[in-house]
């Protein structure tokens, strides 16, 4: 191993202590070799499967990770990297990369009805027009999946009826003869290693997905299923002309061209009638972003919801901080007996998993039997009105958040040197003035970054809204925007609610939220100057 302290590093230059490079133990080296071996071995083992699946992105990432690991640990250089790489890799793969992917998706119309690329969609449309000719070859069909029996991906195992010893494996990519691991029983595949064979019930449950499957053969024909146990090969009546980008119905002579309708393209005839409701993923530029700000359905509620989001996050932070601080100051006096017991009890809410607290509190607001009305003697329909629902959300968040602020404030108070407050007192500052002029500013320096982080957390606190009120109450004249909706809960309902899943649009919303949260946090950090002395 290399010398752990880089001699060219300015912070250590001129150190008086002579250094000898330390050496790793033999077991440490063995462990290192073993781990690197496992990494490389795994990468090599996965490569054929990835090549077969044509997942080039995945393959690139896999080898990039492998190379980074080998470069970091097999050489004696870049010492800090040896400590930083494991966590950074995880962060890059499962946080940064998904964010980048989200940003990329936000420029497409990806969603229900547009999940496939254009080529696959055309194949599906053409395939669905396959008709049987008198001499169509017939197959005995077994439908199986190596995934979920309800959603696929599905694979057809086909045995020609005139050649019961041959087996084909058919997927959307084409036919493959003689797949391995197949159990053949009287001209029919009954089991396949690694696959689940679908029974009749499962087939009928998945029939919509199965109807879209047309397996291309080498001779411009397709194999489609005929009921649950047979399939036939036939020629399509629709023909796709790649150069003209048209689909022609050879039976009627109608020509369908790709045309934009809304945010997606369809094949339509001259009268604008769609050939199929299937569309495909396409780049739509900044349309999704424009829609967020111009769609009247969205923008009419957007401003109000944005304001409430800011209010919700601000009040949550301020409320929990003040309450926690008051409790901390009160109990942070050495003359108070049982300090430890108080503290132990006050942090209990923090120890209860968040989803439990939220679901529990949501039952507290029941008008007739809920605990809140019970204790206070009120008779309020908390989730019935938008104002009371907002109060309820804030109150719940106050309970959930104050123990953390109590802990933070207690810790910060204890870290303030006693002689400072002592000096203030001697100078004649009474209790409150001393607190306001000395203690509070010092405390704020410590906790400011935490307040910013808590603000950012609450700004996107989907869980709190979703588990408490579900965004409600909803008024009849605006059924999509609820009274307690914050931006993230509102837009996710838009993106995944009625009208089908609009992933591209949801991604655009996520990107906007990333930017808004980041900007607000950066401004707050700047205002509080809390990051200036990071070292």
């Amino acid at each position: 191993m290399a010398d752990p302290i880089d001699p060219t590093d300015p912070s250590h230059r001129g150190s008086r202590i002579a250094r000898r490079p330390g050496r790793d133990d033999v077991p440490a080296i063995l462990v290192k070799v073993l781990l690197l071996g496992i990494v490389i071995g795994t990468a090599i083992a996965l490569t054929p499967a990835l090549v077969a699946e044509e997942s080039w992105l995945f393959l690139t990432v896999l080898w990039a990770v492998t190379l980074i690991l080998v470069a970091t640990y097999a050489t004696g250089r870049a010492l800090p990297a040896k400590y930083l790489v494991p966590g950074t890799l995880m962060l890059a793969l499962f946080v940064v990369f998904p964010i980048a992917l989200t940003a990329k998706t936000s420029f497409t119309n990806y969603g229900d009805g547009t999940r496939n690329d254009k080529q696959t969609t055309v194949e599906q449309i053409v395939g669905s027009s396959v008709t049987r000719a008198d001499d169509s070859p017939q197959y005995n069909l077994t439908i199986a999946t190596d995934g979920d029996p309800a959603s696929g991906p599905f694979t057809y195992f086909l045995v020609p009826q005139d050649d019961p010893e041959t087996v084909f494996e058919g997927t959307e990519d084409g036919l493959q003869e003689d797949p391995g691991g197949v159990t053949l029983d009287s001209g029919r595949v009954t089991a396949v290693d690694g696959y689940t064979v679908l029974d009749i019930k499962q087939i009928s449950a998945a029939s919509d997905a199965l109807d879209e499957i047309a397996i291309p053969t080498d001779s411009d024909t397709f194999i489609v299923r005929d009921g649950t146990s047979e399939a036939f090969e036939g020629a399509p009546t629709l023909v796709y002309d790649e150069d003209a980008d048209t689909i022609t119905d050879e039976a009627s002579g109608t020509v369908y061209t790709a045309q934009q309708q809304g945010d997606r393209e369809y094949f339509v005839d001259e009268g604008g009638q769609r050939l199929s409701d299937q569309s495909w993923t396409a780049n739509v530029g900044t349309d999704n972003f424009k829609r967020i700000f111009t769609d009247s359905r969205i923008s009419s509620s957007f401003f109000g919801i944005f304001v409430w989001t800011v209010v919700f996050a601000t009040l949550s932070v301020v409320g929990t901080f003040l309450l926690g601080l008051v409790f901390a100051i009160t109990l942070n006096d050495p003359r108070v007996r049982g300090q430890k017991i108080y503290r132990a009890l006050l942090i209990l809410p923090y120890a209860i998993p968040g989803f439990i607290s939220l679901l529990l509190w949501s039952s507290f607001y029941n008008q007739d039997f809920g605990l809140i009305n019970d204790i206070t003697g009120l008779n309020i329909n908390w989730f019935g009105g938008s104002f009371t629902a907002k109060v309820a959300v804030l109150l719940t968040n106050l309970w959930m958040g104050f123990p953390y602020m109590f802990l933070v404030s207690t810790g910060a108070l204890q870290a303030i040197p006693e002689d400072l407050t002592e000096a203030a007192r001697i100078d004649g500052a009474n209790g409150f003035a001393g607190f306001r002029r000395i203690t509070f500013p010092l405390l704020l320096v410590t906790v400011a970054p935490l307040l910013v982080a808590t603000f950012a957390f609450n700004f996107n606190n989907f869980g709190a809204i979703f588990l408490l009120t579900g965004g409600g109450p909803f008024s009849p004249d605006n059924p999509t925007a609820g009274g307690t909706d914050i931006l993230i809960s509102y837009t996710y309902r838009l993106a995944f609610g009625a009208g089908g899943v609009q992933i591209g649009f949801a991604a655009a919303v996520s990107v906007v939220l990333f930017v808004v949260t980041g900007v607000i946090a950066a401004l707050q950090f700047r205002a509080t100057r809390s990051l200036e002395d990071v070292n």
Partner: protein
Amino acid sequence: MTQVQGPPPGTTLVEDAPVAKASGRGGGKAPKVKMGAKRWFREVGWRHLVGVIAVAWALFPVSYLVSASLNPLGNVVTSTLIPQAFSLDNYTQLLDEQPFGTWYRNSIIVCAAVVFVQLFFSALAAFAFSRFRFTGRRGGLLALLLIQMFPQFLAAVALYLMFTDIGAVIPAIGLDTLAGYILMMCGGSLGQVWLIKGFFDSIPMSLDEAAMLDGASHVQVFFRIILPLVRPILAVCGLLVFVGVIGEFLMASIFLRDEGNKTLATGLYGLIDADRSNNLGVFAAGSIMTAIPVVLLFLYLQRFIVGGITAGGVKG
């Protein structure tokens, strides 16, 4: 919901502040000053009053939860703040009729794996940030702070698609597997860097240097000298991560659909979502059993938490 944030820069980290206490006036051994009842109340007594109110405010939902779990009828209508009956019906019902054991096991597996990875990787990175000087060091620290401000939920769709693809090649870590879910959660591996770095910074460099003079390598310094010194803090960080992970609901509900893969969060949510009013008792029983180990750990580590957590986390 699972974000557990690092501490702020410049945070002073005290381990239940023995120093502050010793120098503070009146700490433990200070001479007792007799004071009148009036003065006592003005200076100390009111603190107890506020303290008792605070405790009541903190505990009333907990009391209700306990009471609901012991209520044999188990619905919202008959549940009260103070237990009126003592019946374990809800507990037996939960254990007999629901796969509670499976949820518990799954949650423990996920928590153990994520806590271990996050602590280990965070400690490694914190060591680099604390002990080495390299280009991009400050930028890296700030970037970490910013990135952790975004919930993974914002990229949920991308993660879903990613793990669908991964599952097509390696089914063992695809969607709807605990391993895949754990891997996804490990994206937050650097969540504790700020907090742990703060503690590493408080350990004098001279310790490292002395060890190196004796021929120790940097790896040995890390494992044999630094890590043992911060064990209590690692425990506290681990606890924070644990609370975050065991309560993680959103990503789990997207990732883990199969009944056998459900965690406590998704399982218990399914219970109460099915019938908000009548399943309250069973839900409460499950919540109590979920919360008890966490609460016990909290109480056990209290000493370190209160003093040392000026940093800490944002819990969801």
